[in-house]
């Protein structure tokens, strides 16, 4: 309330006479006159709410008044420090401390938990009151802010900061009584909510309820640390809390690169993303495009003779899915024939590495002198939620990548430039956080999705559990079946990690199909295949398996390499044969758990639910239509698939290559690159080499439910009768 003349009023505070303008709160009045009153829920840049009652003072009335919200009245006698007031505050603090996990996160990190400060000042070490028995929980979903409801004192500061200061309207209270707490949106996890990670709530919180998340390697070694003020000048950091930036000062640095300098190498692990401020950079794949199992064409008499002895059928993999583009972690895709692209100012790369700790998917080299921002996850998260940045990102995407992205899906190859232009502005880029459902089984279908980054799990709810149908990676698409058939969604698509999808609305989709009947035709074909495969899988899983069978994950497998231990003489011929067929590197290890009298060898099981495929930064591990999981020749050797495989079936092997000698430019030296290998069922031979080479007929590649049917089925019959 502003008025030109504000009458002054007089009152007494602690025996001191003060004169303040009318409407001033007691707290402000005391503050102006140098009398401190402890507060908790009051923050000066926010409207007071008076919920904590720590600032109570004796105003000579029946109850003490909360000084932060009580306006001073003329002639008030305020006593801020009487014994009773102290006792009241003491009790209050003690009550608050009894539920407080001392030392809380804030106290541990920065030592400035206001509640504990107060407690220390009041001399409270052990509260008399018992602790609450039910935990209130934590929320780790946000990338930048850690939520610990245990520490929350419901002071409302965050809510006021989010609503009143930043106008994001994300935070609110929920619940009643002892169950009260703060909530984001409709009590969503913070990371899934519409929170924009501005950091205001965290800055406002007095306790450890909302703290700045410490990201691994918070300190970036190289580069110039930027002043938050400079950062705020950048358009992309508009509307980001300055304090927040200050807190995360070391999480973003500016780096300069000379022309020709390598910025990052493919396969390396990292945790930072880069945003180009000036200059341009080349992004390419430095690994040779070659399979780990390479056998060149037979030149020379003897090698031709030898190749007659071990005949290989032609490698048909190219027929199945022709991928003209290799998806990488940037706003462009690399064409297969010449995997080089260029990035300019305003473009970002390394997002997946930064957010989900995937290895770098390509090598980036500065083409001209560049200046870049290198940032950690928290800063990236800020950016990604920032509206300005998002707008820029989407614009970039539409201009540069949408075309190639669409075209990299072979079905959409016939799209004309006009249509892509038409689509350009009508597509929507959506972000999903890990675990978030993109579309649910049974929902009406209204969109078609293309995956820009991240991994999506396509699964179906069945009696007995969830059946994973597929994992889709960048360049994959989903949602077309329901659009084509007009029925509700037949599967649930869930984001496995931070996923960004391009959403094309149903109308545009129909338009596309109408204009390009070829696309419709191939889409329908794919849809049909997918449905068929789903149906087949459903039939296969109707066997109720035995405990151990399940426990070892054998039910997941579609093809097992089993060694009959009553015939195997442990002669290692299978291993040698595998190595022979694959350039000296064996894809099979003769070790593993036993099932019945068989040893389930460590060799790719062609799982229904191929966990290995999740996370490949260049999408080189994929599944052919005939089951085999193969690793394409552009594997960059990051090792993620090897980690993911729960059975250890994927291994990394060194691969000798010629690389440019850094010491002598222009020359090449021998070096070793690492690539991932896994059993590919010897698809270019008539039967797997290991089975072929076993002299005792002990090695078999089998389909587990059929092979072990007579072991499982009798048990199955028993369980069925029990049910």
């Amino acid at each position, binding site marked *: 309330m502003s008025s030109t003349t504000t009458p002054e009023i007089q009152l007494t505070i602690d025996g001191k006479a003060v004169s303040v303008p009318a409407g001033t709160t007691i707290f402000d009045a005391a503050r102006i006159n140098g009398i401190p009153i402890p507060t908790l829920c009051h923050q000066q840049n926010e409207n007071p709410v008076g919920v904590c009652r720590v600032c109570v003072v004796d105003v000579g009335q029946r109850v003490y008044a909360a000084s932060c919200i009580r306006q001073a009245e003329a002639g008030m006698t305020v006593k801020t420090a009487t014994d009773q007031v102290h006792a009241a505050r003491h009790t209050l603090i003690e009550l608050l401390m009894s539920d407080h996990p001392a030392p809380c996160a804030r106290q541990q990190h920065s030592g400035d938990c206001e509640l504990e400060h107060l407690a220390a000042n009041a001399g409270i070490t052990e509260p008399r009151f018992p602790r609450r028995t039910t935990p209130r929980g934590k929320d780790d979903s946000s990338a930048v802010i850690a939520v610990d409801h245990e520490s929350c004192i419901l002071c409302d500061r965050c809510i006021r900061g989010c609503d009143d200061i930043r106008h994001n309207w994300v935070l609110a209270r929920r619940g009643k009584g002892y169950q009260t707490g703060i909530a984001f949106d409709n009590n969503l996890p913070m990371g899934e909510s519409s929170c924009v990670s501005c950091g205001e709530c965290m800055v406002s919180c007095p306790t450890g309820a909302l703290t700045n998340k410490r990201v691994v390697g918070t300190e970036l070694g190289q580069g110039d640390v930027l002043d938050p003020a400079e950062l705020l000048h950048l358009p992309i950091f508009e509307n980001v809390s300055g304090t927040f930036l200050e807190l995360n000062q070391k999480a973003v640095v500016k780096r300069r690169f000379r022309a020709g300098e390598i910025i990052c190498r493919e396969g390396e692990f990292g945790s930072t993303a880069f945003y180009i401020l000036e200059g341009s950079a080349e992004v390419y794949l430095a690994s040779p495009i070659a399979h780990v199992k390479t056998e060149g064409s037979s030149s020379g008499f003897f090698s031709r003779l030898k190749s007659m002895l071990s005949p290989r059928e032609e490698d048909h993999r190219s027929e199945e899915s022709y991928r003209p583009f290799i998806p990488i972690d940037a706003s462009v895709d690399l064409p297969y024939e010449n995997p080089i692209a260029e990035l300019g100012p305003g473009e970002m790369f390394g997002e997946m590495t930064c957010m989900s700790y995937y290895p770098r998917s390509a090598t980036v080299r500065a083409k001209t002198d560049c200046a870049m921002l290198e940032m950690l996850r928290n800063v990236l998260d800020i950016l990604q939620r920032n509206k300005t940045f998002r707008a820029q990102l989407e614009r970039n995407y539409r201009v540069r990548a949408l075309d190639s992205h669409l075209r990299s899906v072979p079905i959409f190859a016939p799209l004309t430039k006009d249509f892509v232009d038409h689509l350009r502005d009508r597509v929507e880029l959506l972000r999903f956080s890990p675990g978030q459902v993109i579309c649910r089984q049974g929902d009406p279908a209204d969109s078609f999705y293309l995956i820009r980054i991240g991994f999506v799990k396509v699964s179906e709810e069945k009696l007995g559990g969830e059946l994973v149908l597929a994992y889709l990676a960048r360049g994959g698409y989903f949602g077309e079946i329901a659009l084509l058939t007009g029925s509700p969604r037949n599967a649930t698509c869930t984001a496995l990690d931070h996923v960004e999808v391009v959403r094309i609305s149903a109308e545009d989709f129909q338009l596309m199909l109408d204009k390009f009947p070829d696309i419709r035709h191939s889409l329908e074909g794919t849809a049909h295949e997918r449905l068929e495969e789903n149906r087949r899988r459903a039939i296969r899983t109707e066997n109720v398996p035995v405990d151990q069978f399940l426990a070892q994950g054998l039910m997941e497998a579609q093809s097992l390499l089993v060694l009959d231990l009553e015939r195997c*003489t442990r002669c290692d011929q299978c291993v040698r044969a595998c190595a022979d*067929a694959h350039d000296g590197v064996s894809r099979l290890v003769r070790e593993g758990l036993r099932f019945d009298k068989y040893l389930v060898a460590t060799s790719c099981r062609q799982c229904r639910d191929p966990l290995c495929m999740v996370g490949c930064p260049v999408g080189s591990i994929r599944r052919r239509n005939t089951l085999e999981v193969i690793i394409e020749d552009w594997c960059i050797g990051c090792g993620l698939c090897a980690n993911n495989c729960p059975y250890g079936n994927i291994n990394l092997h060194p691969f000798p290559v010629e690389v440019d000698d850094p010491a002598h430019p222009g020359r090449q030296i021998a070096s070793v690159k690492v690539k991932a290998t896994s059993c590919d069922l010897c698809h270019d031979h008539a039967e797997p080499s290991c089975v072929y080479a076993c002299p005792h007929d002990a090695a078999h590649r089998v389909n587990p439910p059929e092979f072990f049917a007579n072991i499982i089925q009798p048990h199955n019959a028993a369980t069925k009768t029990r049910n």
Partner: protein
Amino acid sequence: MIVLVLATAVYVAYSVRSIHGPRGGSALGLTYGIVGFSFMLFAGLLGLRKKFPIWRVGRAQSWMRGHLWLGFLSFPLILFHGGFHFGGQLTRVLMWLFIFVFVSGILGALLQHFMPRVYTAQLPMETIYEQIDRVRGQLAEEAVRLVEEACSALEGEVSHASELQRATSAGAGKMGGLTVASGLQADEEVSAQLRNFLNGEMLPYLNRAGAEGMSLSVAAQARTMFQQLRILLPQNLHSSVDDLENICEEKRQLDRQTRLHKLLHGWLLVHIPLSYALLLLGAVHAVMALKF
């Protein structure tokens, strides 16, 4: 089988009718000799076949069966060839070599038939033979780690204690108060005893390739020892003792595997070199016999 019957019939007829009994040099004797030697050559080629396992020249299994059958048949054929006589020096040596090779081959075939079952039944924790040393080293490391954890818990240091141990004491109050109300007694003496056990008994046992003379190599004795350990240690360290016992059991099985493996593969050390010698001298014999 038919071949064998046929060959026997022919031989019987031949030996009855021929003058002075069957001879290696006569036409039929030569036939027997050549056929028998060619069988032996094929049998010898199995080794070569195994060097190139992926060449599509016939399944390894077919070659193996061929090896067994033809090798088996070559024995009576060569006997027929020589007319059951041993002949001169070279042929005597050859015959003895052949007998050894044949017998060792039969023995090996039997071993390969029966041993895998023994293996499977007795060695639930078997591993790859060539890696036993490495696995053993890993077992030793694991044992050391386990004992370190337990000892640290006994000595009151929280940092080395495992998650489980901490979890069991989580309800005991202070985070740092592991020694309070959690049942873990700080006991230096027990910890020292445990370390002694590790260094004195387990590590020597685990690091040794064989098992002679070590008390832990006998299952009953080991059980007793570990039972004593259990009495010694407090309740929530019993899981560590169980793990140590399991490690010893695995080591026992690895030792047994070594023994069985040597048995299963040892005969090859006789069979293969002798068969090379046999083929070599047989070639010499063939050349010289035909030359004369």
